[in-house]
């Protein structure tokens, strides 16, 4: 891996690193204290808690008035550029992501709500989109600069394996806004020069999974958890399983009672693989509950395991070791 000489030098120079970070953070602090943004963090927190957008006057104005939003965001970018001129190796203290054709910078986040700058580069070749994704979130995107051709997708009906989606083209330009919901999404098909959006979004309190569908026929291509915390816990469970931490089995049995069906099932699988007795007891409990949505799959797995290991049937007749 090539590491530039300047970075190599910076690596060993803690005071210089702290100075660069401090300068960047100061630029952001100064911007937050400036006009047009004071109070936005509090409003974003209220929006995350479920208030309507029109109950958050600062956010409402910011996402409705292109000139205002442009001047507020320009002030931020100018402040960051000024800081970077002084500290060229400073880290912009925002969560960010860059890939070919676009970049995003998360300006502020509170709970499930976030204010993000999104940029699309019209010069990079864009492959025609083949899939459209819907996530359990809502919000709006205000065009700060540039123009683009969108394809707006409406999720009309959905089954476990496919969806009916209506599409319509839309031209969007500076000052215009696109509002999205869990059933309305968009694809940027063509960017004229570049496109910069200010995006305000919030996810549901208990977000359902996001789904990707093939645009050609609406077939479900992929489903992903919409709950970051739950995926975090799922990874932690998998880690405990790979570490063979048998002492985690009671916790996994407990986790198989709460959360999404997918998460509960993963907890059950990990529990069974770590501790057969405790896992099977948890499985049998779920299988016996006719009101549990996992009752069917649990009963099928229970029967399958008993067929393979007949001695498991005796566990149910004995007191639970947990």
């Amino acid at each position, binding site marked *: 891996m090539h590491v530039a000489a300047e970075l190599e030098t910076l690596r060993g120079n803690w005071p210089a690193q702290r100075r660069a970070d401090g300068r960047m953070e100061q630029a952001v602090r100064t911007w937050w204290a400036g006009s047009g943004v004071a109070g936005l963090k509090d409003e974003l927190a209220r929006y995350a808690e479920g208030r309507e957008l029109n109950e958050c006057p600062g956010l409402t104005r910011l996402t409705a008035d292109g000139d205002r939003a442009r001047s507020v965001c320009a002030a931020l970018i100018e402040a960051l550029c000024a800081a970077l001129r002084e500290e060229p190796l400073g880290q912009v203290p925002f969560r960010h992501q860059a890939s070919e*054709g676009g970049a995003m910078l998360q300006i502020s986040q509170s709970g499930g709500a976030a204010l993000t700058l999104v940029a699309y580069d019209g010069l990079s070749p864009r492959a025609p989109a083949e899939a459209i994704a819907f996530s359990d979130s809502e919000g709006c995107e205000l065009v700060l600069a540039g123009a683009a051709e969108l394809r707006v997708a409406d999720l009309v009906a959905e089954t476990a394996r496919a969806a009916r989606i209506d599409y319509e083209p839309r031209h969007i330009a500076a000052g215009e806004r696109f509002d999205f919901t869990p059933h309305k999404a968009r694809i940027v098909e063509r960017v004229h020069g570049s496109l910069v959006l200010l995006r305000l979004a919030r996810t549901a309190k208990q977000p359902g999974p996001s789904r990707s569908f093939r645009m050609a026929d609406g077939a479900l291509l992929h489903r992903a958890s919409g709950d970051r915390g739950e995926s975090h816990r799922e990874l932690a469970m998998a880690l405990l399983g790979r570490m063979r931490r048998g002492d985690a089995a009671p916790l996994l049995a407990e986790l198989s009672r709460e959360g999404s069906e997918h998460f509960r099932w993963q907890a059950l699988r990990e529990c069974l693989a770590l501790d057969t007795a405790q896992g099977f007891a948890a499985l049998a409990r779920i299988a016996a509950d006719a009101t549990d949505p996992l009752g069917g799959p649990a009963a099928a797995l229970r029967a399958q395991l008993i067929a393979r290991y007949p*001695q498991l049937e005796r566990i149910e007749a004995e007191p639970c070791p947990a």
Partner: protein
Amino acid sequence: MSLPAIDLASLPGLEAGTGLYGSQSAVACGMDDRLIIIMVYVYDANIGPSTH
């Protein structure tokens, strides 16, 4: 009572499989409006699991 050890890979997933937060299908890969959060797990044998 001697109980068998059950291999995780032998236990089926649910019919409606769900990937982790931020995961995408190969077809859907590319720039879209989701910010991907990367989760890193650091395990220290002395102090137990922790996350960052």
